[in-house]
């Protein structure tokens, strides 16, 4: 159920219960509620870890020695001194994994905000005004849509940093490339909705009253065109930090002295694995998997709840089911 149809009901619910995820949690039951809740919990844990990384991590992401001035040593197995061992470069795996959450979440926020603002705005204008600009934008978005984001990320990281990444250039390469790939996704979905919504009677009434275009666009059309965004946001978020990790794995990520970054750690772990050293690969890898799992579970559940054929509803839920017209397929 989207916020739009909830809004359409005569008796408004409290603001808290209309918040995107809270509303869906109330509406879901059984397995679906479990999956949504699991996703929310996992993601929240990462957000907390990212914020309090300084408190949680015993060492800095770039520390080679502790307070006593002695070097950690290379490839130390997990133990009391180093909870998850040390890397081949002598860095503490636990601390780097913790700080990695912060880097990942910054990328996610930058990428999602950029792609969403640009994509939604373009979709809105393109769908509402139509014309040649609309057609050109559709063709451009179609072209970019199917292109591997990692390849674009590589190209963009070369452009931004010449391939040698500091903290912000690494983050921006991942975020920009994801933006380039995801703008078309927001664009398509929003544009399709806008084309549908602008034919509705309430838009016509607004025009008749003499409302300005900007008012119609942002007060009437926009609100009714963003129902499928939650799913795309979650796909976008997952893709963003996985691209950062992919860049790191190829050696185009953020230097270890600039931030903790999981992809870099995995690249360094590639050789360790052959000699049976597991802790350098396992922990940063699991950090990626669980964050992706958390965000994806949220996205999947939200998508299912928007699709009446997949939704299980409480028998007493007296809500009118407005079928979602577009269900976006996870393809990343």
């Amino acid at each position, binding site marked *: 159920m989207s916020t739009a149809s909830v809004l359409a009901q005569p008796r408004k619910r409290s603001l808290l219960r209309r918040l995107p995820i809270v509303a869906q949690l109330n509406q879901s039951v059984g*397995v679906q509620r*479990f*999956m949504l809740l699991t996703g929310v919990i996992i993601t929240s844990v990462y957000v907390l870890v990212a914020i309090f990384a300084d408190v949680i991590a015993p060492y800095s992401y770039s520390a080679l020695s502790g307070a006593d001035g002695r070097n950690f040593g290379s490839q130390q197995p997990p133990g009391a001194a180093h909870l998850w061992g040390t890397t081949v470069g002598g860095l503490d795996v636990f601390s780097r994994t913790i700080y990695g959450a912060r880097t990942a979440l910054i990328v996610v926020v930058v990428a999602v905000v950029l792609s969403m603002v640009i994509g939604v705005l373009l979709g809105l204008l393109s769908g509402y005004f139509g014309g040649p600009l609309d057609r050109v934008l559709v*063709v*451009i978005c*179609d*072209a*970019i*849509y*199917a*292109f*591997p*984001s*990692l*390849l674009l990320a*590589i*190209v963009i990281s*070369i*452009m*931004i940093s*010449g*391939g040698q990444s500091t903290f912000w250039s690494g983050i921006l390469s991942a975020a920009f490339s994801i933006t*380039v790939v995801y703008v078309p996704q927001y664009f*398509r*979905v929003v544009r*399709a909705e806008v084309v549908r919504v602008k034919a509705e009677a309430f838009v016509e009434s607004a025009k008749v009253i003499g409302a300005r275009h900007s008012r119609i666009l942002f007060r009437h059309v926009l609100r009714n065109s963003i129902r499928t965004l939650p799913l795309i946001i979650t796909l976008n978020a*997952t893709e963003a930090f*996985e691209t950062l990790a*992919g860049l790191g*794995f*190829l050696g*185009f990520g953020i230097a270890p002295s600039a931030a903790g970054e999981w*992809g870099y750690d*995995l690249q360094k*772990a*590639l050789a360790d*694995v*052959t000699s*049976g050293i*597991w802790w350098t*690969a*396992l922990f940063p*890898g699991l950090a*990626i*998997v669980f964050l*992706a*799992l958390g965000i*994806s*579970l949220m996205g*999947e559940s939200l998508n299912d709840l928007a699709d009446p*054929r*997949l939704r*299980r509803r409480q028998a007493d839920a007296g809500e009118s089911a407005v079928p979602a017209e*577009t*269900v*976006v*397929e*996870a*393809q*990343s």
Partner: protein
Amino acid sequence: MTTSVDTVPAPDAPASIQPSGTASRQGGGLIRYLIVRFLLIFPTIFILVTLVFFLMRATGDPITAAQGGHVPPAQLKHLIHEAGYDRPLIVQYLQYLGQIARGDFGTTFTDHQKVTTVLLTYGSATLELAFYALIVAFLVGIPLGLLAAYIRDRWGDAVLRILAVLFYATPVFFSGLLLKLIFASWLDVLPVAGRASTSVELEMQLLPHPTGIYLIDAFRTGDPAAVPDVLEHAVLPAVALGLLTAGVFLRLVRTNVIGTFNTQYVDAARSRGVGEFRLVTKHAYKPALIPIITVIGLQIALLLGGAVLTETTFEWKGLGFQLNAYLGSRDFVAVQGIVALLAVIVAVVNFIVDVIAALIDPRVRF
């Protein structure tokens, strides 16, 4: 086509396979669709190539990026002038477009090979890997998706769906590392990396006109140990890359089979006493597969992106591995060429997939 709506529509639009040309109107629609779709390839390639060109050149030229700081400024200037990178950007761009139109994607800076030659040399390895990966994806994704639909909304379904998310959310280099750790390092049952053992590779190099597809070449050597050796090397990379797509397939099959379950023809079959298991495997299954064909087109992009990472993880000497090698030696002319060439491949493959989808599913032809 692209924001794939993962549904099978209402029963009034049955997904029957119609031989094209039975009705003249429909046949005309198909041909028109194919022509329009074919013409769309060109703007797609043009846009992607333009994007890549300007992204790569926005901040400078490839020579400064590769050599800056390593050679004296005067020599650098000479190199830039020689390669023509000091001309106005628009001139370079037009020249680049002209080159692409003639099928010339440039010459690599480090080893002076044509990018198209690089593709021919290493493309077969990537193709072979993608093929194995698709097999894994089908073998894992479709049966599990059917099972998930069969036991939908029970805990087993939840487990399968979380599995699906795990499959496609795990970066391929991490699943590759785990597989290497378990099967190559600890259990020591499969090779760590590479496409074949050195002795087998030597044997294959002696063949007249090797295809570059190792499975075929291994058969041709006539050595009974060659084929198992090649297959052994392929297992881990194929599984790592295949599971990624398997997750997508699992989810898609589940959603679509559940969708077809609500249709009247399934109700009719059920009321005739067809068992629930047979309903899944015989009745609801086939129409649910059509969206998969459309999605395979999108998987090509995923597979290509994944191939760069998989090949790097397993030292599988394909296009992705080579791209990474050029990245390592900062040969950005090669990188630009390969990326542009991949853009063309993606555009053409998507066209082919759309054509296949249109041939078997009349609804696509609008």
